[in-house]
Every structure is written in C-alpha cells, then in structure tokens.
C-alpha cells in the first residue's frame, strides 16, 4: 500500500508539470494582453511596451516559463498582475466558500442519490423507479444557473426565507452560515443526485441479479440486509468512481453557481482572472485544481480497497 502511495504521489509530478506547461502556453496563445488592460484608454503602444517590459512579458516564452517553474519550486506562485497581491494569499482567501459548497453538495448528493438509486433498483419497474429516473433526467437537463435563479425567486424573493446572495463564515454563526449555503448547495446537488442515483440503480441491478444475492435471499435474510450489507457494498466501487468524477464536474459548476449566488470563491476568482488576463493567478488556480483532482483520484482508488477486499495495491 505504501509503495502504491509513493508511486501515485510521484506520478503527480509529471501530471502537474504537463498541466502547468499546457496552461502556461494556452494562456499566452489565447489572445489578450494584461499590459494593454493596465494601460487603459490613454495608453499608447509605448506605454504598453513599457508595462510589458516591467512585467517581464516581453521575454521569450520559454524564459518566462522556466522562471515561473523556478518560483513554483520555491513555493512561490508569484503576485497578481492587477492587484499586486500574493497569488497564494488570494487563493487562500477564496478557498473556504468553494470547499464548503463542494463538500456540502457531495454530502447532500450522496445522502439523497444513493438511497434513491437503491429504492429504484429494489422496486425496479414500479412507479418509484420510473419517477426516480424521470426526475434524474430532468436533473441532468436543467442548467445550474436556471435552477439558481428559480431557487432565488421562490425562497428569497417570494418567501423571503433565505438570503439571495453572499457567504458568511461559520465563525459568524451557524444559522447565517447554513442559510447562505442552502441554495447554492441545492443548485449544485441536483445534477449530482441525478448522476449518483442513476449509477447506483444500474450498478445495484447488476449485483441484484448475481447468484450470491439469490442465495442470500434463499437463506431467508431480510431484504434490508441483502440490499445494504451485501448488494450495495459490492456496487459501491462504481458509485465511488462517479462521486470522484462528480467533484470534477462540481468545479465547473461552482464557477457559474458562485456568480449567481455571489460567493467569493475560487470559481469567481478563475473567471475574473481569465477576463483580466491575470496570468499568475490563473496559473496558480490551475495548479491548485490539478492538485485537488490528483488527490481525489487517489482517495477514490484507495476507497476501492475498503469496498472490495479483493482489490490490493
């Protein structure tokens, strides 16, 4: 297990290097120029050239890349071109809302999605199954921003029960904290619930037709034990995989949801930095997101050994 962990951790280095290089080159090729943005309306080609020189953007791409990698090796993500703040501080200041919303979404999605999938598989062909699958199709089809506006209209504008926007730290009180994360969590959870419910159902149906389940039932085990102790545990590997993939989807979804609910998280920082061509910030965020993906994949792989003892690393 330890050697597996080491190998996986070592494997993250080339992954991060490739991601870093691709992101670096793509950003430079995508058009736009932070110096032109900084120079503003009164800028002249000379002013823009002076700003480019000061920012080091006039140097060959390879020199800029090597310099950035060197900084990275020293744990320095650089400074924002626009605000001159440390990129690490900017990212640290924005991590909490994204992390909280992602975790609450995954938690809620699993709490609802897995039982729904189990129910649909158990009652296959019944109205419960058909309804669960129909609702999951709707869940997939609805865009996150439309759902967000719908929740805001119903719960905030019409009922006045929840705030429209913003984020409050847990330190400022449990109730304000929860009231601010309910709607974004609901918005992001719908797709995740649909995804988890469908995969749980499919995976469980396959297991439920296996011989060992028939044997368990023939031995007179209660259906509850058959479903949850024997069948669900064997169906858990694909569910864990889909939860891992769901986190990747979440990061994409968070970008839109953070804008709709005005959450000061990493998603918004990404959009703002891309529009402003704030290269160091974008590169920093990509590194962080890549690191998160790598860690989540590792955790998912490790979780397989819990659900299926036959899997060994």
């Amino acid at each position, binding site marked *: 297990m330890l050697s597996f962990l080491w190998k996986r951790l070592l494997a993250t280095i080339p992954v991060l290097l490739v991601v870093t290089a691709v992101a670096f080159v793509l950003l430079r090729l995508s*058009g*736009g*120029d932070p110096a*032109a*943005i*900084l*120079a*503003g*309306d*009164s*800028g*002249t*080609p000379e*002013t*823009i050239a*002076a*700003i480019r020189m*000061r920012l080091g953007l006039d140097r060959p791409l390879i020199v800029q890349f090597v310099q950035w990698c060197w900084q990275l090796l020293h744990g320095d993500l650089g400074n*924002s071109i*626009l*605000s*001159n*703040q440390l990129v690490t501080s*900017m990212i640290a*200041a*924005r991590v909490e809302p994204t992390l909280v919303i992602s975790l609450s979404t995954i938690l809620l999605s699993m709490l609802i999605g897995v039982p729904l999938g189990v129910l649909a598989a158990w009652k296959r062909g019944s109205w419960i199954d058909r309804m669960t699958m129909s609702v999951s199709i709707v869940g997939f089809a609805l865009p996150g921003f439309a759902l967000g*506006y719908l929740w*805001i209209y119903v719960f*905030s*504008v019409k009922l*006045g029960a929840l*705030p*429209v*926007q*913003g984020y409050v730290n847990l330190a400022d009180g449990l109730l304000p904290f929860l009231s601010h994360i309910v709607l974004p969590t609901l918005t992001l959870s719908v797709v995740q619930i649909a995804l988890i419910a469908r995969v749980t159902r499919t995976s469980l149906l396959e297991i439920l037709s296996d011989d060992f389940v028939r044997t368990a039932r023939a031995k007179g085990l209660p259906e509850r034990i058959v479903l949850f102790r024997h069948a669900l545990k064997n169906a858990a590997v694909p569910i864990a995989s889909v939860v891992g993939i769901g986190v990747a989807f979440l990061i994409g979804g968070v970008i839109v949801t953070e*804008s*709709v*609910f*005005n959450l*000061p998280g990493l998603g*918004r*920082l990404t*959009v*703002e930095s891309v*529009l*402003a*061509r704030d290269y160091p910030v974008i590169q920093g965020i990509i590194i962080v997101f890549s690191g998160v993906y790598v860690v989540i994949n590792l955790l998912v792989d490790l979780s397989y050994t819990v659900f299926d003892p036959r899997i060994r690393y």
Partner: protein
Amino acid sequence: MTLRIDRRNILKLGSGGALALSMPRIALAQATKTIRAVMHAPLRISDPMFSTAWTARNHGYNIYDTLFSTDSQFQIKPQMVESFETSADRLVWTFQLRSGLKFHDGAPVTSADVLPSLARWSKRDSMGQKLMEFVVEMTAVDERTFRIKLNQPCGFLLQALGKPNSSVPFIMPARIAATPADQAVTDYIGSGPFHFVTAEFKPGTKAVYERNPDYVSRNEPSDGMSGGRVVKVGRYEWISMPDLQTAANALMGNEIDYLEMPPHDLLPALSKAPGVELTDYNPLGYVGTCRMNWLAPPFDKLEIRQAVLHALNQQDWLDAQIGNPDYYEITPAMFIAGTPFASNSGWSTKADVALAKDLLKKGGYKGEQIVIPNATDVPILNALGTVTAQALQAIGMNVTLVPMDWGSVLARRAKQDPPTQGGWSLFHSGWAATDMMNPLGNAYINAKGKNGGSFGWAEDAAIEKLRDDFARTGILSDQKKISDDIQKRAYEVVTYIPTGQYKNPAANRKSLQGILKAPVPLFWNIDKVG
C-alpha cells in the same frame, strides 16, 4: 466663581448633561451605519493614476483629495486649495493649501506632497501631459504654498487640476507619489474623507472604507464634486456581484443599499419594487464611440471614412444598446450635450446611404476586409458592433465581426498590424461623458497620429493647431468657438463617430438620502436613515 443651586441652574445642568450624554450616541449611530454598495465592477487595481479604470477613480475619490473640483455647473472650485493667485501675465500661479489637512497616517499635507503627485499624474493623463508642455517649473514656496511657472499662458490649468474623471490629479504623500508612473502604488494612504481598510480588501470581491475622523471638510454645501465632503456613515462596503440579476434581487431584498449601474432592462422592475428608487445621479451619463484605424486600408482614405460616417444612424445604435428613449439622447456633440462646449455642427446623426455609397466609390474601395473586434461579454458594446456591421454591409463593405471578450479587444486595439494579420479596422468603446467634454481631455480628438495619438492613430495638423489654440486661451467664448471648429474638422476627417449619449441611473434603497448629482458615484453626504 460659585454656582448657586436653584431650579434654573439644575435644569441647565440637566439639559447640558443630557446633550453631553447624547453626543456619543449620535457619534455611535453614525459610526455603526454602513452603506453596502454594488458597483459596476470590482476593485482590482487600486491606483487611480496608474489605471484609467472607473473603479480606480471611484476608489481614489474615497481616499484621496484633490486641489480643485468641478461643481454641478462645470465650474472649477478650490478643494484642498484655500486661495490662489496669478501674475498679470498669467505665467506664474501661486496656490495656498487649506490649513489642517492631514493624511490618514497623521502627517500634514504639504506642498512637498503636492508637487510629486502632480508630476506622477502628468505622466499618465492626457490633460496632464498637455499641461506639462506649458510648465517651466513647479516649486514649493513653503509648507502650504506652491507655485507653477508657465512658458506661455495656459487656458486650462484649473480645468486640468479640477478634472472630475480619469485620471484625476489626486494628492498622495510624497513617498507614495515617488512610485514610478508605470507601477501601481501598494500603500493606500490619502487625505480623503474615507480611509481604506487594507485588512479587509479582497481584490475582485470586496473593498471597505471607513470614515476619516480627521478629514477637514470645506464649509460650503456639497455641489457636484465640489464643496463640503461630510461623511455621514461610519463604513462603506464596496461589494462585487458579477450577476446583476442577483444584485437587483439583493437590493429588493434589502441585502444591499445601492446598485450603481443596473442594466436598462431591469429598471422597470426596480422602479416598482417597494423601498427602492432610481436615482439619476450622473446628469451627463455615458457615450459610446466608433473608432476607425487610420493606419490600415481602407480607412487610411478620407472618402472611405466619410462613407462610414454617412452609412450610420445614431438612433439605430442607441435603440440596440439602450432601447428606451427616456434614457438616451441623439446628439452629434463630441464634447457632450449639456456642457459648455456642446455643438451640433458637423453631422446630422442620420444615415445617408446614397451619399455613403457614392463616397465609397470615390474612395476607390476594393472590397478590403473590415475587421471589427467585438466585445461579446459587454452587452452594451456588443450591440454597437452588430449595428455597425449591418450598416456597413448595407453599403457594400466586406465586414467581418470578430467575437471576443473585452480583454482581447483591448489587446487587439493596441496593434498596428494589418487587420487580416492580427490588427483591426474599427472598434467600439464606452466612455464617461465627462471624459470627452473638452478638446484636450477627449482622447479621440487627439490627432497626433502614431506619435502620441490614441488607438486608431488619427493624424491631422489642423486639429492639433486648434487644440493648441484652445489650450492657450482662457476666455470661454473663444474656447467655445475653437471647440466648435474642432468638432467640424473632426467630422470632416472623421477622427471618430459618437454612437450617442445615454444615462444609467443607479438603484438604491429609499433609506439612502443625500446622494449627490455628479459624474462619479460619491459616498460622502449620504445618510442612511430608518
């Protein structure tokens, strides 16, 4: 002295005591009032001299002070300056600062701070650069007195020092003003009515200001940008909300107090919402521009530029951009309708397609590609690009509308390459009307070409001669005559085409009282009641 204890004295003591006791409560009530405002964009670059962004300018007005300011009638009034005088030949100007002015760190504001601030500003601002062509030297006479010597009479010295829009000559401490002009300052000490709460600054998300208790306000009532700058709340939070529908909902739900620029399509809903009102605080509003690239064929030819002018109809732009005529004004005034230099000369604002086609033929148009970089992420500019493309196609031009984000437009407009090789032919942008209200500040009247001209690089010696004449004269009637001549010439050679003037009222909770009418959203003088 002895105090006799009788009923009258006891009442006096009692009322005096009650007043004394109530004073801290009044101060406390003021200190606990917070205005939560969603501005048109978040604050990222916080140096108003380094950046021409409106956000940086608005931030500057909160934390810095200015020597002069513009009142509601566009008159220049002293602000930090107590008095000033000029020599008989108008070559030496002497200014004295008001006493008691202090920076947020407690240091006094002196002439030694003013001079480097002006020097830094003049490197970034077009009016500042023009002013420095007249300046021989700037010297500190004593702590509160400074002198500016000119090489010839200058008609716009006070207009430059009191200009309301980017870049504003804000006064910074000398050590901060020593920062090179192409580098942003990182120390936010000013002497303005608010101080910046650096610890709470989250670029792109939130900026916080608190009342500066040491600010010495002028005694006159507030008038436009000028007069007293009395802060009536303890704290002002500048919140960023990327989604304006969410911001509108937050305003209606009383989660915020002020929304600077709600989109025009949300105004009907906001005007009917309980507790919300629309405030037309900016009497001049904004203006759009259509700018051609003089360096690239076919717009290097006069007749082709004139063909474009006559192919376009200003109302089409405004209808696509704003929609509701209550919020726009059709006007050819390059120096802004409603200001001293407004003029209707030069263009009818209406299309004349036959004339445009004729001019196109005379100019020898050979079907060259017209590349229009179009900012699709800024709806108000996206509409302009679409209208222009259709109008030019209607007279037979070969137009390619290239969709991109505003950041890419900014990079592309700086390129002087041919349009088909990464350059451009024509682009649109939006300005605060006050940016354009005189021939020196209006960047697209600048006709210096590649040697100091703005993007598009219009070059015309006649305009430059008129601008110099304008700069030298200090007589308003002469300035009006010259600015009218400049406008006529600018339309003749087509330095740019104004796409129309429009307003964008703010939406605010009715509890905010005392919002000033000015070309910039100002947060002094506003009280929050109820």
